[in-house]
């Protein structure tokens, strides 16, 4: 960068922000500083990061290092003033740099092609010289056709001594590809800013059967009113076969407006519920911390009833539909299994991986059937005597579903930016502005041809295309003659 004396201050500021050097410095700075936030866990709290710091600087220095890092914004660095400043400078650089170059590029894109002098033609990157035994007019016509069939616009001009020039170009707009990439980055930035300003990101733990009209913002914990109520009807984890490996986390949610149910949907990871611009994602689950009594849900198939659902409470006898038998849930385990050595039953985890209920049955006050455990995972354990099957489906009301709730009015801009960028990157790297000039000179019975061509990128592959065009020209000119 050479600064001239007669440059005004605004000019110099403009030049500064339009420079590639600044772009290189900013990109390098963003890359380097971003590393910090991947090593120090972001928003993780004092305890966790003190531990990380101790391994680097020792326990005695760790608190001081924490203070320093915290003052520098390292604990939430991607939202710190200096990182945001870097991003803003990057955006400014991108904008001004593009605006600065655009007029020149626009001229290259829109300028009509003009015929070239022979000596200029001979200096082009790609040159082919050959002769065909066909009249010049025919060669000219064939050349135009070949150019057209390869997607080139074409023009002709006459020169002295019967010589003429056919020329054409294609892909001139591909020169803009890189600027569209730049613009798409800015569009994504704008989308992110709109989302940050007018949207929110929060969480909500909803126990089965409960509803809420607010969600809690991440970080601050502030209540955000939804303007409607969302209720969790059911939460369930499905497992693969007989294993403890989760296959599906799913919740059935309902949306209520003025007490009226307006929407009901099963959500799962990768398949959220959207209502009035607010999206509810399945993000976690867990047992309700304060223990409370839920309902045991059974399906009964008996000689007198097929597939009837029964909801029961612990220690409260209920009648098995279609029979005169009273059943009672006397015990429950969220994850019951058998110890391989002792053969004793025990609960192996507090999360509801393998729930089971212990049942007792009476008829007229007398114990009947066989008391014992029924597992949800093993429906055959519900096969009782007398043709009665009691399937244990669910322990309802003991778990909550963890929802991530998001409103982002800027996300469509982010998606638009991403789409534009995908297309523009392809254009920028794999398409080029290609030009061809063909000088046709009659030479006794022959016609001499001088072809010159240029591409602003990927010249090697264009040369192959030119070779193909040349052989087509020769073939068509001479073939038409026979």
């Amino acid at each position, binding site marked *: 960068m050479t600064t001239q004396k007669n440059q005004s201050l605004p000019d110099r500021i403009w030049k500064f922000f339009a420079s590639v050097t600044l772009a290189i410095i900013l990109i390098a700075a963003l890359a380097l500083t971003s590393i910090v936030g991947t090593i120090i866990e972001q928003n993780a709290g004092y305890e966790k990061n003190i531990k990380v710091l101790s391994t680097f600087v020792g326990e005695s220095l760790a608190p001081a290092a924490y203070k320093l890092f915290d003052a520098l914004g390292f604990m939430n660095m991607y939202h710190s003033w200096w990182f945001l400043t870097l991003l803003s400078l990057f955006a400014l650089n991108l904008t001004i740099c593009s605006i600065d170059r655009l007029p020149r590029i626009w001229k290259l894109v829109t300028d009509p092609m003009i015929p070239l002098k022979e000596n200029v033609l001979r200096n082009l990157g790609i040159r082919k010289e050959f002769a065909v035994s066909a009249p010049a007019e025919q060669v000219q016509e064939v050349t135009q056709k070949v150019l057209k069939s390869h997607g080139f616009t074409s023009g002709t001009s006459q020169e002295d001594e019967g010589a003429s020039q056919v020329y054409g170009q294609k892909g001139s707009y591909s020169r803009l590809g890189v600027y569209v990439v730049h613009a798409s980055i800015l569009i994504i930035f704008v989308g992110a800013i709109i989302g940050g300003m007018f949207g929110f990101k929060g969480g909500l733990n909803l126990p089965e059967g409960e509803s809420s009209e607010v969600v809690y913002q991440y970080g601050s914990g502030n209540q955000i009113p939804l303007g409607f109520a969302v209720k969790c009807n059911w939460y369930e984890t499905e497992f693969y076969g007989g294993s403890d490996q989760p296959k599906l986390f799913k919740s059935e949610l309902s949306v209520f407006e003025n007490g009226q149910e307006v929407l009901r949907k099963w959500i799962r990871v*990768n398949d959220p519920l959207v209502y009035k611009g607010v999206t509810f994602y399945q993000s976690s689950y867990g047992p309700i911390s304060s223990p409370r009594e839920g309902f045991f849900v059974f399906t009964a198939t008996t000689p007198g009833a097929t597939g009837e659902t029964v909801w029961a409470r612990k220690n409260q006898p209920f009648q098995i539909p279609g029979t005169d038998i009273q059943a009672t849930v006397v015990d429950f385990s969220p994850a019951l299994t058998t110890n391989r050595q002792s053969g004793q039953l025990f609960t192996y985890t507090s999360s509801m991986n393998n729930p089971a209920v212990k049942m007792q049955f009476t008829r007229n006050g007398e114990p009947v059937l066989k008391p014992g455990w029924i597992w949800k995972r093993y429906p055959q354990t519900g096969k009782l005597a007398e043709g009665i099957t009691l399937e244990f489906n669910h322990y309802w009301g003991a778990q909550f579903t963890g929802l991530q709730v998001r409103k982002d009015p800027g996300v469509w801009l982010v998606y638009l930016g991403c789409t534009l960028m995908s297309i523009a990157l392809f254009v920028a790297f794999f398409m080029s502005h290609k030009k061809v000039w063909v000088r046709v000179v009659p030479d006794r019975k022959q016609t001499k041809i001088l072809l010159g061509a240029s591409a602003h990128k990927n010249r090697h592959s264009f040369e192959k295309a030119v070779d193909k065009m040349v052989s087509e020209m020769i073939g068509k000119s001479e073939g038409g003659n026979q």
Partner: protein
Amino acid sequence: MSSSDLFNLSTFAYIAAMIAYLSYLVFRKNGIGLVATGITILGFLAQTAAIVVRWQESYIQWMRFSPDTSFLLAVSRSAPLRNLYESLVFFIWSMIIIYLIIEFVYKNRSLGAFVTPIAGLALAFIEMSGMSKDISPLVPALQSNWLIAHVLISFFGYGAFAVSYATANMHLILETDDKKSPSHIFWAFTFAAFLWCLLIMMAKMSMYPPVISPDGREVPGTPPASFWFAGAAVYFVLVGLVYRFGLSLKKVFRFFALSTDVLDDITYKAIAVGFPLLSLGIITGAIWADSAWGTYWSWDPKETWSLITWFVYALYLHSRLMRGWKGRKTAVLSLIGFISVIFTYLGVNLLLSGLHSYGGG
């Protein structure tokens, strides 16, 4: 043949291809070159078949658990791209296909002597390590149609970058005459980092394998501090070895018909292919994260490192295309870029935490 037989066949084929490529470089006989290419293609086909067989096995498993799934959905949900083992195999597969394309386009086999040993040794390494080769059903977060697109695109990008790394490194070696020159020291450090990542991953996998938590998640093993101290020592030993013996590679390269200009050109072309793919990989990842968690960008270490990688290659492109940098300077940037790729792919899972815990150790 079972998928592991086919994997072994492809491992042997890649190692045999390395010998063939090296003899081609020494004897310069076209016939030997054709044999080398043939063996590589054979290995590639065997590996492809192995992946297909594995895919079929996991398709059967998926259908056993969810018999009511449509054919297409089941095929997409059983794609063998679920854990570190499968992703490494696929990484090698993409590297080989990208190499074969380059060999075909450039009509030059010299690079084969570099790529096939990496593929063969890496496959052998994977086979010998304690890495879990089980066909495990897909965890809920990975049950998305974005999985295949995201992984496929990212890995073709990684493969292209791997090629650019190989050519840029050869470039630096060819331009170095003196062990004390900064570029020799630089590539010794980066090449050692590359080797170290592979070694330490294998060591961690076999010595501290991941455990399955009660809720079914695979939790990476946690080696003690002494493991990492030993690891750091190993790194410096590797740096020393590469520093000491690196220059003798130059003698090997004398056989190569590659000029630094051609190497520079291939480096650029590979990055020109890799960069849009990396961008698309980041974009598909963001869209997937948005549909799964409601955040298209959360600055988790994997995301951030992919962005850092993107910045480094953006730097390469701008300095080369706008500033006219060439040769050694851009080769150095390309090396930094690939180290960043390796860190994004393996280092983050190895050393840092984040949402992307499935694909890692």
